């Protein structure tokens, strides 16, 4: 088979080469253009007006952008930490302990992955409205939507992704290893700390980076549950577009792209690491 692949006829090879080129152009031309025009000194998007760093300067100086970025980062970090802990615990429970209703919870966990964003957003909105009404009638306090409701929503959808990634890792790890650890005088906690955790750590980190990316990228759900002062960067960009596009959006997008690429690279590095030893 390998021999055949090497002996492809000249024109087949040429066609394949063209195909690959087109695919790459299709993928990367918009990115290249985005990056290029983020340096364009012309307030109209898509017209080259000479090289400038003004848009990046604007990005750094614009208070609205800065505050949106701050909200994004805070929400992303908080929701990632919480969903990593809860998602990992859910994964361990579902994978390691057989209990009544196991299958049911199993299916339930996958639901947020397949529910359309808009549905999820409406669900969360409804939930927060009812929660707010309940809080004000029962406790007489007003809990209006804000950063906390955005964070809770992000946690809600991130848990599923984290636990799916972590579960794959746990499933690939023999239960015998934990038993061996306990047989070798490790308590349950020590067995988890020195054997299970290092072995599933790449999964946890992978899941965490996924949660971080999902949180930083989300527009639809965030827009529904955001309150005053909880505009995230993607929601802000979305709003900017409605008011009219400026190359500032390009600059913001490039920064977001760079952040995403960085996260993916980090996750690759994490997956390669094999976990630590007993110290």
């Amino acid at each position, binding site marked *: 088979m390998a021999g055949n692949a090497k002996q492809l006829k000249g024109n087949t090879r040429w066609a394949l080469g063209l195909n690959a080129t087109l695919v790459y152009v299709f993928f990367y031309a918009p990115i290249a253009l985005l990056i290029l025009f983020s340096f364009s000194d012309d307030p109209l998007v898509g017209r080259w007006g000479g090289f400038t760093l003004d848009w990046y300067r604007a990005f750094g100086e614009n208070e609205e952008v800065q505050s949106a970025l701050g909200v994004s980062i805070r929400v992303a970090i908080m929701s990632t930490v919480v969903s990593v802990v809860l998602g990992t615990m859910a994964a361990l429970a579902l994978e390691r302990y057989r209990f009544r209703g196991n299958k049911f919870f199993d299916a339930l966990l996958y639901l947020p992955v397949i529910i359309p964003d808009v549905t999820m957003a409406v669900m969360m909105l409804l939930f927060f409205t009812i929660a707010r009404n309940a809080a004000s009638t029962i406790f007489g306090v007003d809990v209006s939507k804000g950063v906390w409701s955005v964070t809770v929503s992000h946690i809600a959808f991130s848990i599923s992704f984290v636990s799916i990634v972590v579960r794959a890792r746990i499933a690939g790890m023999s239960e015998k290893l934990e038993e061996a*650890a*306990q*047989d*070798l*005088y490790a308590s*349950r906690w020590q067995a988890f700390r*020195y054997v299970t955790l290092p072995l599933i750590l790449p999964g946890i980190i992978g899941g965490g980076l996924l949660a971080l990316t999902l949180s930083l990228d989300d527009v639809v759900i965030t827009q529904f549950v955001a309150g005053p002062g909880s505009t995230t960067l993607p929601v802000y960009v979305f709003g900017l577009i409605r008011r009219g596009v400026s190359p500032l959006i390009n600059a913001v997008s490039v920064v977001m792209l760079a952040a995403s690429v960085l996260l993916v690279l980090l996750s690759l590095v994490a997956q390669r690491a094999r976990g*630590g*030893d*007993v110290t």
Partner: protein
Amino acid sequence: MGEEMHDQAGGPMTAAVDIQGVTKRFGDVVAVDNVDLEIADGEFFAMLGPSGCGKTTTLRMIAGLEFPTEGSLKIFGEEVGTLPPNLRPVNTVFQNYALFPHMNVLDNVSFGLRMQGKDKRESAHAAQEMLELVQLGGMAKRKPDQLSGGQQQRVALARALVNKPKVLLLDEPLGALDLKLRQDMQNELKSLQRELGVSFVFVTHDQEEALTMSDRIAVMHDGKLLQVGTAEELYDQPVNRFVADFIGQTNLIDATVFDADMIVLANGTKIRAPNPYPAGDKVAMSLRPESISIGHVDEVPEEFRATSLTGTVSDVIYLGHSHVYTVNVDWMPLEVRTNATPTSIKHEPGSEVAIWWDRRSDWVVPDEGHGA
């Protein structure tokens, strides 16, 4: 079985493992069924039986990885029923070794000591020494996946033994090795056990392995413990059809008890076979192929008249050192194994022959415990 164990001085001795009336159920499955078992200190003890008979489950209960549904389980006199594994003075060599893939060999071996709170240097030192003992001194820094199957096996052994357990549990530790390596490891295990004087509880479904290595063997079937004894006891005095058939090869001939000295075979032939069963009981006579002699019909020696049958040779296989005959004695085929010497006569298929045996070499078992 029933006898108490005694030490050299003759006094009663605490058993390393004492299992009384232990049953383990998984839902509807009875994995281990009312087992009584005592394993002596310093004994090489094998648990033998077909797949699914409850060997692993028994071992896991001793290790604390599974708790008995009923019954009492003591280790050196201390009741351990629901004590977690980390609080028991036993260690296990798992079937597929279960080495920690993220740690190097030295860290694997020192893990148990570290978990017991021993100092890092001290643990590493003890681990290195144990690695030398299993001839892996130079492999300390390797990861388990950089070792061969046999080497991983030794690491698993070192990882357990470095803790100086009072009882070492081994679940088919040689199952994954090829024949040659297996035999080498059998010898090594045996001499290691003698050297350390620790009780080894060794699970296997290879009867030859059990017979050659162990001081005593327990035969299990369907969760029940059928018999415990030395290799000779199991071979010469099986308690039922299953054990007779499972240990070595045998001819099982259905019969009825005539009196304490005689049984009647299916064709009415009376055979001398001392037995403790009441007259009229259905029994089976176990007759090992190698304890039967074969010859011409008129050749049966006088003293073996009462323990002889006649039949027709239907098949003969030459194995170099022996001939294996299949002799049809009118209602069933029997296997007969004779030494092949240059002077021995070979009986061709179709020839009429007599077969006879010493009355001490037949053995009557109750007609129960069919299987295998």
